[in-house]
């Protein structure tokens, strides 16, 4: 999740980041997001995040691909243009299986990819948080947490207080935060 405006806090390592996230949540903030150089389950737990449901996309995409593939095979060679080849019946499930499976794999993978782009809100090349000085460390070894200014409980003074208490390395506003 990327916010239009808010405050970003940088921490030295994951342990400090977890303290920072808890400090912000303790102050009632709910619209917060962490940034780290690698995926981490403890960060997700501290944020109280829900599990990703992308597996559903794989299932639905794969099923649609397989059913669509089988239907197309039947439609083309059994219905539209049936040819008798060595006494094999026009509708021959055994021969249709391979393309059915392959189409299941293909559409399952493409569905996961598309769902990943949508769910992660990718293909947005710029976001206000990119303007925070030093934010690029998130893709190297830095740990950041951002609080959205659209949060009903957003209070800059309380965030500065939480930052001091949790040992943040730097605090910076972005997107013209109040």
């Amino acid at each position: 999740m990327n916010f239009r405006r808010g405050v970003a806090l940088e921490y030295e390592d994951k342990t400090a980041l977890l303290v920072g996230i808890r400090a912000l949540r303790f102050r009632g903030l709910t619209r917060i997001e962490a940034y780290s150089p690698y995926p981490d389950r403890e960060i997700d737990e501290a944020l109280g995040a829900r599990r990703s449901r992308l597996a559903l996309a794989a299932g639905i995409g794969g099923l649609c691909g397989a059913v669509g593939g089988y239907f197309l095979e039947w439609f083309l060679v059994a219905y539209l243009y049936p040819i008798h080849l060595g006494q094999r019946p026009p509708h021959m499930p055994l021969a249709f299986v391979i393309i059915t499976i392959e189409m299941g794999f293909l559409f399952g993978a493409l569905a996961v990819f598309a769902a990943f782009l949508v769910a992660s809100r990718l293909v947005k090349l710029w976001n206000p948080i990119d303007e925070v000085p030093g934010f690029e460390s998130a893709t190297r070894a830095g740990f950041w947490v951002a609080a959205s200014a659209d949060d009903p409980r957003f209070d800059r003074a309380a965030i500065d207080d939480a930052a001091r208490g949790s040992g943040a390395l730097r605090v910076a506003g972005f997107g013209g935060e109040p």
Partner: protein
Amino acid sequence: MTALAELHDDVFGRMRTRASTFWRLGFTICGLLTALLACTVALTIGSGIGRWGNNIPAAWAFAIINFVFWIGIGHAGTFISAILYLLEQGSWRNSISRLTETMTIFAVIQAALFPMLHLGRPWFAYWLFPYPDIMGVWPQVKSALPWDAAAVSTYFTVSVVFWYVGMIPDLASLRDHGGPIWKRKLFGLMAMGWRGDAESWRHWKVAYLMLASIATPLVISVHSVVSSDFAIGLTPGWHSTLQPPYFVGGAIFSGFAMVIVLAIPTRHAFRIEHVIKDRHLDNCAKLMLITGWVVAYGYLTEHFGAYYSGDPADRSLMFHFHPASITFWLMLFCNVAAPQLLWWRRARRTEWILFAVSLLVLLGMWLERFVIIVQGLLRDQLPSAWSSYTPTWVDLSILAGTFGFFGLLFLLFLRFMPFVPVSELKEEAVVEP
């Protein structure tokens, strides 16, 4: 500086080194071979596949040998990146997974070239796919050719998606840290605005896991489909239920050989022996030994089947002298005898021995396809149809050219892209400090 920052700077710093003499030399050789490939492909398209040594009965010959060889090479890449990921072998899989995924994609590109050219009129290759045309003729899905088209194109697409999704966090690192501005802009476009937020990471993890779960049965299915092209034919030595496991085992076997052949020079050229460690090569060698035995068991079963079935054509093929028998014995030496050296830890840990054995395995697996395809076709049920086969210089040039083109793509990738999955190494470094 934290340990993570050190890891990041070290690995990316090494990947950004200037082109070495070694790289330039490789690039020149591969470039020349690629030019040869372009010329011979143009010649083939311009004047037809009569330029090749193919004849009747040896109608498949070099094109299909090379197709099966290259598609097999790709298998170890998916095996390492997908199957070992699901089996939680991250501690040795991570550092070589990007290299091997890349190898897969570039190998499938070489493989796809051959059936396309073998069609005779490659500009009609799109007829293999069901598109609404005014002729009203559709692909015949009861034939093995559309199976291959579906399997190979699916394999290529899924491999590219898997490779790209895995690379997004590293592309974002390259966008954010160092390098000329045009490169950073390009990496920025490719990273699609990745920032490493926890929500994206959660989806990334699941997407990667799902793609690995799809790629795992896919890699088994692809060579099984390729083997079905053979198994549904009545040619001696082909018509057997042995083919799918035999082909898949052989594919992974040759793929590991190629992984070792690529990883050893790469780790020296970029001085990343501490990233791609001896232990990783050792594990690849062990898997090569195991899959080598699967292949050896395949040879044994094939011959037992021919003996036990009493089929005269099968028996004649397997047990009688053949003008090209030398290829069979050479294949046995390369694929069965040579890998036995890998029982010794010292051989697995001595790079030149490992490298030499891997080259022999690559040669052996190419010869295996030669034995299956050419010898089977030349000795079918009708002795009056027996014939001989000799490849032409165009056949040999195209084969050499694909090695050059594969090498060229691989060298370009090493030079410009993140060939070590640094974000996965960071995660591993935190879990296992």
